[in-house]
């Protein structure tokens, strides 16, 4: 016996116990009567005692059984039929059957010496070949979307061959569009009176049920007479999967990560292998757990492209993750922009920063550029700052005084933030900066405020490594700063102003996927003496560490399967001439517009190569792990009848030829409740 709504079976015990609980908890009020004919009453009691003693219990039992039968009926039980050809089993009632064959990448998981998809395809073929001459069938392959324009097949044998010839894809699962396509096909109304069924040949991934919280009844085209059944694979196999690597930390090191499901928690992968573009595996460091079901490892190997590998396990398709960073993107350097064009004058912020870098106190290389010089319009305004710094390739960008506002500068910063980049900014004391604070970082200030501000309020731990006990931060003082209106920022350090009033000294602002750190008092000596205090190297080093860790940094080129992406070459390509070379060696012409190469959705994961003019690069296409398809987690209570995969062809034929028994159990419930009412002496 199979069930259309198996989850309702959980309600059967509750339905059975509910009347008993109500009986115990809610007792009707009992009247009390002073009575004369007690002898007659006792005589009547003696007459009925034997039957009466058990009557309430019997009535309660009947009521409980009636409620349980009704609940059982709601589970839509289907009594298995004989595995005869469907047309004959249905005794003259032909069927319309839509087979939904799941080709998502979770169907590649190993099962019984083969994989899930093979079993599903063979089941579909067997069921198709068992159809009678009066039956009608359709086969729809689906993953995130069903195949376009599904239609009824003319020859079941042809459909069976098509099912066996199909192969799983790399997309994730979504049942809703597939079921709606099947319902639309069944609702064509051409053959009224036939039995209509949907057979979902899928592993029932929990992630595929997104958008189906209310069950198939809420889907477009659903009819209660439709019967829906799906495969039920036993257990949940252990599986781990590699996640795309990224540049992380202040050193912009390569960090690769792996995730695993609950079944693999007992023995999660201990190492993650890294491989170069050719696929050669390199030994990696041990994984370090970063959360429940995930771990990461930081690699010293500076590979701009390649893959990270985990496993092997139930689903090998997700054991490799590909990455591709722009050439030069691994730079951990710092770019400092300052007013120019001359060298930074002594006492200015850029002067102290440059001096700090030249002293060798910081482990970073720094490049100093000035934004005051006349800069020719860049070839691609979308990719560089006005002063020619490529936005997405910069390590950490330090603004030693905010550049005068221009739409190009604002747009460039916005793009940097959108790409996960960070900016460290110091306001300038030489000219008003309130407009730039607002336009670049969204900080609201009425203008500079003069006074006597002290760093005595800096606390331990606000910036890692900056300890007020180690450095006499109270000796830091400022004579002016930009007070900020509340909201929109996080205050990291505060000055103590006149009368103990607090004023933000260093604030953090989230902008897009990136972050900005803004020093409100300038580093120019005429405003603040921080740059000449012993704490300055530690402060600046900590600030750079904070900036490096605060944003994810410019990412690599790539996308996930089925989604488009883009590539921005260093040299803006012409609007034609770009191409993508697939792992198989096939080439695809790409379109370039305003220096951006649009990469269409790709169907297969792997490391792709792109070429635009003389510049070449890599493009990584990975599986979409955002839906946790790799978790191989079956839906706990899918809204369809479960057909055990172990004997799927037989069970499927049984389901298709079976008889819906809900009406029988409803009749049984009505009979039981009527008997209970009769026993109680009530009118049913």
């Amino acid at each position: 016996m199979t069930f259309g709504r198996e989850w309702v079976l959980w309600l059967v015990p509750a339905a059975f116990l509910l009347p008993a609980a109500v009986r115990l908890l809610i007792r009707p009020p009992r009247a009390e009567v002073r009575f004369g004919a007690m002898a007659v009453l006792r005589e009547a009691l003696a007459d009925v005692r034997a039957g009466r003693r058990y009557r309430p219990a019997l009535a309660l039992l009947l009521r409980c059984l009636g409620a349980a039968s009704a609940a059982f009926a709601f589970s839509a039980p289907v009594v298995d039929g004989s595995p005869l050809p469907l047309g004959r089993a249905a005794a003259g009632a032909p069927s319309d059957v839509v087979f939904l064959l799941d080709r998502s990448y979770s169907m590649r998981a190993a099962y019984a010496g083969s994989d899930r998809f093979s079993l599903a395809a063979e089941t579909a073929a067997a069921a198709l070949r068992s159809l009678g001459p009066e039956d009608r069938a359709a086969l729809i392959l689906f993953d995130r979307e069903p195949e376009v324009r599904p239609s009824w097949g003319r020859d079941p044998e042809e459909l069976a061959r098509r099912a066996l010839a199909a192969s799983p894809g790399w997309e994730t699962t979504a049942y809703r569009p597939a079921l709606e396509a099947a319902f639309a096909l069944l609702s064509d109304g051409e053959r009224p009176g036939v039995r209509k069924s949907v057979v979902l040949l899928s592993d029932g991934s929990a992630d595929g049920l997104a958008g189906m919280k209310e069950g198939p009844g809420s889907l477009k085209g659903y009819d209660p007479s439709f019967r829906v059944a799906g495969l039920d694979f036993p257990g949940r196999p252990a599986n781990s999967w590699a996640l795309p690597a990224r540049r992380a930390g202040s050193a912009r090191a390569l960090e690769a990560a792996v995730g695993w499901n609950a079944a693999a928690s007992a023995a999660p992968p201990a190492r993650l292998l890294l491989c170069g573009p050719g696929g050669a595996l390199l030994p990696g460091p041990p994984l370090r757990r970063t959360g429940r079901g995930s771990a990461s490892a930081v690699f010293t190997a500076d590979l701009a492209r390649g893959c990270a590998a985990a496993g092997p396990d139930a689903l090998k398709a997700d054991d490799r993750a590909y990455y591709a960073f722009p050439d030069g993107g691994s730079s951990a350097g710092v770019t400092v922009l300052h007013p120019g064009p001359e060298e930074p004058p002594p006492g200015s912020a850029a002067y102290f920063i440059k001096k700090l870098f030249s002293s060798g106190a910081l482990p970073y290389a720094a490049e100093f550029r000035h934004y005051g010089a006349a800069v020719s319009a860049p070839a691609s305004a979308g990719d560089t700052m006005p002063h020619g710094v490529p936005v997405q390739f910069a390590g950490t960008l330090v603004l030693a005084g905010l550049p005068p506002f221009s739409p190009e500068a604002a747009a460039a910063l916005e793009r940097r933030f959108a790409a996960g980049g960070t900016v460290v900014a110091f306001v300038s004391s030489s000219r008003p900066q309130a407009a730039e604070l607002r336009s670049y970082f969204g900080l609201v200030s009425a203008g500079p405020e003069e006074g006597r501000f002290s760093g005595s309020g800096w606390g331990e731990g606000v910036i890692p490594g900056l300890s007020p006990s180690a450095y006499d931060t109270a000796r830091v003082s400022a004579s002016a700063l930009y007070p900020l209106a509340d909201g929109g920022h996080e205050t990291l350090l505060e000055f103590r102003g006149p009368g103990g009033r607090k004023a933000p000294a260093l604030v953090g602002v989230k902008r897009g996927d990136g972050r900005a750190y803004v020093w409100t008092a300038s580093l120019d000596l005429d405003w603040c003496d921080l740059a000449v205090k012993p704490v300055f190297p530690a402060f600046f080093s900590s600030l750079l560490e904070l900036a490096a860790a605060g944003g994810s940094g410019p990412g690599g080129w790539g996308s996930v399967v089925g989604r488009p992406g883009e590539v921005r070459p260093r040299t803006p390509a012409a609007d034609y001439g770009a191409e993508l070379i697939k792992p198989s060696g096939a080439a695809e012409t790409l379109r370039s517009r305003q220096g951006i190469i649009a990469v269409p959705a790709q169907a297969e994961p792997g490391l792709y190569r792109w070429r635009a003019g003389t510049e070449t690069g890599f493009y990584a296409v990975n599986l979409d792990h955002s839906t946790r398809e790799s978790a191989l987690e079956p839906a706990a209570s899918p809204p369809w009848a479960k057909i055990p995969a172990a004997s799927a062809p037989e069970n499927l034929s049984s389901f298709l030829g079976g008889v819906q028994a809900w009406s029988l159990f409803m009749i049984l419930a009505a009979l039981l409740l009527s008997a209970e009412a009769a026993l109680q002496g009530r009118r049913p």
Partner: protein
Amino acid sequence: MRYLDQETVSRVRARAMRPLRLSASGRAEGFHAARSSHGPGQEFSEYRAYSEGDPVRSIDWKLYARSDRYYLRRFSREESIPFGILADASASMSFAGPGAVFSKWEYACRFAMALACLCLYRRDPCGLDFLPRGSGAGVPRGSGAGHLSRLDAAFSSVKPAGRWDGLAGLAPGPAGGKRPSVFFFSDLLCGRAELEASARELSARAGRCFVLHLLDPGEDGFPWRGETVFSGLEEDGTVAAADDLEDAYLAAAARRRALCAGLFSSPRLSYFPVRTDLPLFRNLDRFLSGWLK
């Protein structure tokens, strides 16, 4: 009077004055069958042929003139018949079912007072006694003015209480002389043994006994719905029952009625069920009609 109102008096008087039909034997006259006793009565009884020694003044000379034979006119002598009212004042008589106007006791008092009124119209002496013993002071037999008031006062002074356990404690009847006819009002709610003993006792004591069985619809039927806890008026303990007991109770009540009808139906005992939900005069008419048959 508490248990006798003017309407009852008027209707009883009308009943008493109503011409009564004679039975086939001609014995019935009035509300009780007068015992045939020839003597200096007022009512002509029969002719008898003259025989020697008969008083001459009894000869019907007009008949002699017509038939040329001597016949004597004979007259019957009317005799008053003593009546007794025996009322069961046990606690169960205080029961009144849902919607009842009168309890069984109140209904019995009204019925008994109507019968007493009727007897006194017929110049038959009537007495009153209560069961169980000690329930209240009885009223000696009498028929004079104010006797009805004494009877009513006696009824009013009694409050049903205690348990009736038969007629064992009843004062013995008069030795010799006429044995009174008795109206026995009771709900007959006691054990079968007590009922049988009471039937024997009444047969032995009374000239003729009319057993008026008070039946309240709340006891004769089973109007209770849902879970009900019954506590006895004459006994301790409770019984919990539900409306599913109705059929069994009705059967038991019918058996009990049949038992009472059987025990109290004999040449000397007449059983008459009195449902207290019926108007008093309807029961009274039915009772008198049955009595006169």
